[in-house]
């Protein structure tokens, strides 16, 4: 008996002893708490993972050369000075002279110099570092420091995206991080944490992986100092938890919320839902290798048979609109003459009949040469809105005699199948960047890559290539409009909808500009109203 009692007491004691560890949530009154679904993945921008929030955090800690502005509605985005205070182009736009901010210092007091800029570029293109955006620097032929605060960059050829490509990735501290050989960078996440010096408005005050990240103002930052006392990112993976925490005060800002969440949060008295233009569009990509879907007339019939207006209304309410192009209507180069094809089941049936499809056995599905018009509609299983959309689309297509089977895959598995071209039709979404380079999705060179459906049109290829080289926005727009019209004619994609960028914040928190530039864009301007 004594043994039994001892064992039970031991188990209870162990349980209570271990469980007496307290939960440590400490808060400052002037801090802002942002809810995020995923954690950051390190502090080195060249080796940290692909999470958007990770990029945003490193962008608060390290200065870039310029600050890209979210003014893409009127024309190509403009850039404001950041580390580079002034810049001048050569006449042929192949040489750029940058004058750096001579007051900029690292958080250990060392000045930020042109040597940091050149060294960062060398690390960015070093194969041993394997930075995922290294190809963005392909256009740079050479870079050299001509003084402590002057850098000259030589480009291979004039390009409309030269500034954006040069600006990809922040400038890193050469005087500290050059101590580690590039070959060790990918296995030394903790080393960078221990040797973290920053140049941006915030510095890292703490990181509990999987739990929270804490940023506080960098006292050595010479620009506009943040008005808030601290910025805390709480990692809340479950969407229900994120909403609950916002409503009960555990979180002050949530970004990239769904229209359904926005509708629910808008009813809360102390919460404001913000809408911002987005560069995101949702589409159905048809696999042109499919014997039926490879025919334009079939794709047109399917597009006419989907009630996209109803779909958009049901799923997005007032927060979205039907898509017509891979360049959303919020972007300057969008072709405003494009009109979405109407929902017209009768015309869809006629088109299918013209293509030779008839329901010969009376089962409600049309056939040709004895083969029914049946295919798979796939999407990723973790996105409820896409799942719902596929159910709607399946129902719409059934009314025109087409049978679509829904297939839900885990995200990575779906990507694998799409990249291998092993799908019939897939529902996905892209956010286009401000380079407006559509080559990755529609150029024939990208077949086998992100041109999932194997779309090939030499006219589109040429227009995409011309647009890359154009420097004048109007000429570039002409090429991009041509691409959009050809895509509207050929229908390799059926564009479903465009969404607004939605975020929710506590009403007292002002200055937030969450949008396509990120959640934390201009976080130094955030403030609490009295």
């Amino acid at each position, binding site marked *: *008996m004594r*043994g*039994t009692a001892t*064992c*039970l007491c031991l*188990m*209870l004691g*162990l*349980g209570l002893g*271990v*469980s007496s*560890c307290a*939960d440590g*949530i400490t808060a400052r009154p002037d801090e802002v708490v942002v809810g995020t679904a*995923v*954690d950051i*993945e*390190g502090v080195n921008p060249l*080796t940290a*993972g*692909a999470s958007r929030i990770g990029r945003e955090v490193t962008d608060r800690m390290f200065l870039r050369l310029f600050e890209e502005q979210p003014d893409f509605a009127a024309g190509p985005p403009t850039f404001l000075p950041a580390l580079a205070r002034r810049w001048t182009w050569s006449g042929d736009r192949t040489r750029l002279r940058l004058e750096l901010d001579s007051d900029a210092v690292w958080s250990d007091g060392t000045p930020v110099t042109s040597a940091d800029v050149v060294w960062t570029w060398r690390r960015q293109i070093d*194969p*041993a570092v*394997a*930075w*995922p*955006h*290294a*190809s963005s620097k392909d256009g740079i032929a050479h870079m050299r420091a001509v003084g402590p605060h002057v850098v000259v960059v030589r480009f291979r050829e004039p390009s409309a995206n030269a500034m954006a490509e040069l600006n990809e990735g922040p400038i890193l501290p050469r005087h500290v991080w050059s101590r580690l050989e590039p070959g060790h*960078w*990918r*296995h*030394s*996440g*903790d080393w960078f944490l221990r040797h973290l010096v920053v140049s941006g408005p915030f510095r890292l005050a703490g990181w*509990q*992986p*999987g*739990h929270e990240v804490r940023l506080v103002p960098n006292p050595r930052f010479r620009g506009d100092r943040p008005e808030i006392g601290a910025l805390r990112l*709480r*990692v*809340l*993976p*479950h969407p*229900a*938890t994120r909403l*609950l*925490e916002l409503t009960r005060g*555990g979180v002050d800002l949530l970004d990239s919320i769904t229209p359904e969440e926005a509708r629910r949060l808008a009813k809360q008295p102390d919460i404001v839902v913000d809408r911002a233009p987005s560069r995101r569009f949702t589409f159905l990509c048809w696999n042109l290798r499919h014997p039926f879907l490879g025919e334009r007339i079939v794709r047109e019939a399917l597009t006419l048979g989907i009630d996209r207006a109803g779909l958009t209304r049901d799923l997005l309410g007032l927060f979205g609109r039907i898509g017509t192009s891979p360049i959303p209507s919020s972007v300057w180069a969008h072709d405003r003459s494009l009109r979405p094809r109407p929902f017209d089941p009768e015309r869809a049936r006629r088109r299918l009949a013209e293509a030779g499809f008839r329901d010969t056995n009376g089962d409600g599905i049309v056939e040709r040469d004895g083969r029914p018009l049946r295919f798979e509609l796939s999407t990723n299983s973790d996105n409820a809105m896409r799942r719902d959309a596929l159910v709607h689309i399946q129902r719409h297509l059934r009314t025109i005699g087409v049978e679509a089977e829904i297939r839900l895959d*885990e*995200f*990575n*598995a779906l*990507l*694998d*199948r799409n*990249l291998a071209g092993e799908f019939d039709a897939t529902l996905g979404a892209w956010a286009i960047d401000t380079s407006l380079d559509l080559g*990755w*999705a529609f150029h024939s060179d990208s077949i086998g*890559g992100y041109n999932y459906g194997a779309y090939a049109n030499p006219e589109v290829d040429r227009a995409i290539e011309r647009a890359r080289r154009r420097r004048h926005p109007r000429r570039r727009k002409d090429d991009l409009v041509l691409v959009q019209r050809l895509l509207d004619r050929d229908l390799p994609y059926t564009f479903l909808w465009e969404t607004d960028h939605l975020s929710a914040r506590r009403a007292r928190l002002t200055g937030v500009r969450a949008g396509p530039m990120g959640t934390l864009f201009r976080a130094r301007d955030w403030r609490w109203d009295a």
Partner: protein
Amino acid sequence: MGRLIRALIRRGGAAGTSLLIVYWSAQALFAVTPGSPLHRYAGRSFSPGDRAALARAWGLDEGVPHRANGGLADLARGRLGASWRDGRPVGSHLRERLPTTLTLTARAATLELLVAFPLAMWAARTRGRAPDRTLRAGAAILHSLPTVAVAITLQHLTPARTGSWAAAVTLAASSIGATTRLLRNAWVDATPAGLVLATRARGVPDWRIWVVHGLRRAAAPVAQALTASLPMFLSGALVVEQVFALPGVGRLLLESARARDLPVAMGVTCVTAAAVILGSWASEGLGRSLDPKTRR
């Protein structure tokens, strides 16, 4: 002494073989899982050269057997490698996340014991009558409740600061049902009506019959069941940590599997497998020490 050493060697060999089987099975499973880790990091702008460089940096250019053998050799030297996502050592990840999961499971086990024991004893004492039937039905319902639904409901009902205790309650909820039923049955078996009557006739007080005699005979199967429920706790922690945003090992496994971060996923798998093997040893040892019959 010689028997003890032989037993230890036998046990160690069996544990090592089990771990090896788990390691190779997990490696094989990850190898056939669709979705390359490169997809997540390699965006649309990723050139074939960039892709090859990253594959080389992560050792993806080597074949699966070669990579798995290398990993095993590192493991034998106590090195778990570095995460593909953030380059931090897998050991650091585990050190950061294990305390949360240990705290959670310890709290859940404590709650389980504190609630299941009195309920089971009450049910055993009222065997066949209304309280027993009600408790058994309640335990069955509790056992069948979906963990995620319990988690979300409790999260809404409890203040934010008590989140980790609510998580422990969620984790304990379904096992309380199972343990109550198990303990009640063990108690009923340990205290047949005849024995109770005979012992009472000898003047032994009621509490002593139930607590001392009953518990001694019922404790062994229950202790074994509790330690054997460790894997169940770990799988439950996966859901609970996700909903309550607790940075534990369950979430680490989920995140690393989603990101195809093989080194971290393998590290968590190996540590979990070792914990399960230790749990099973503890269960057996506890059974032997509590039940004299098994010692023979």
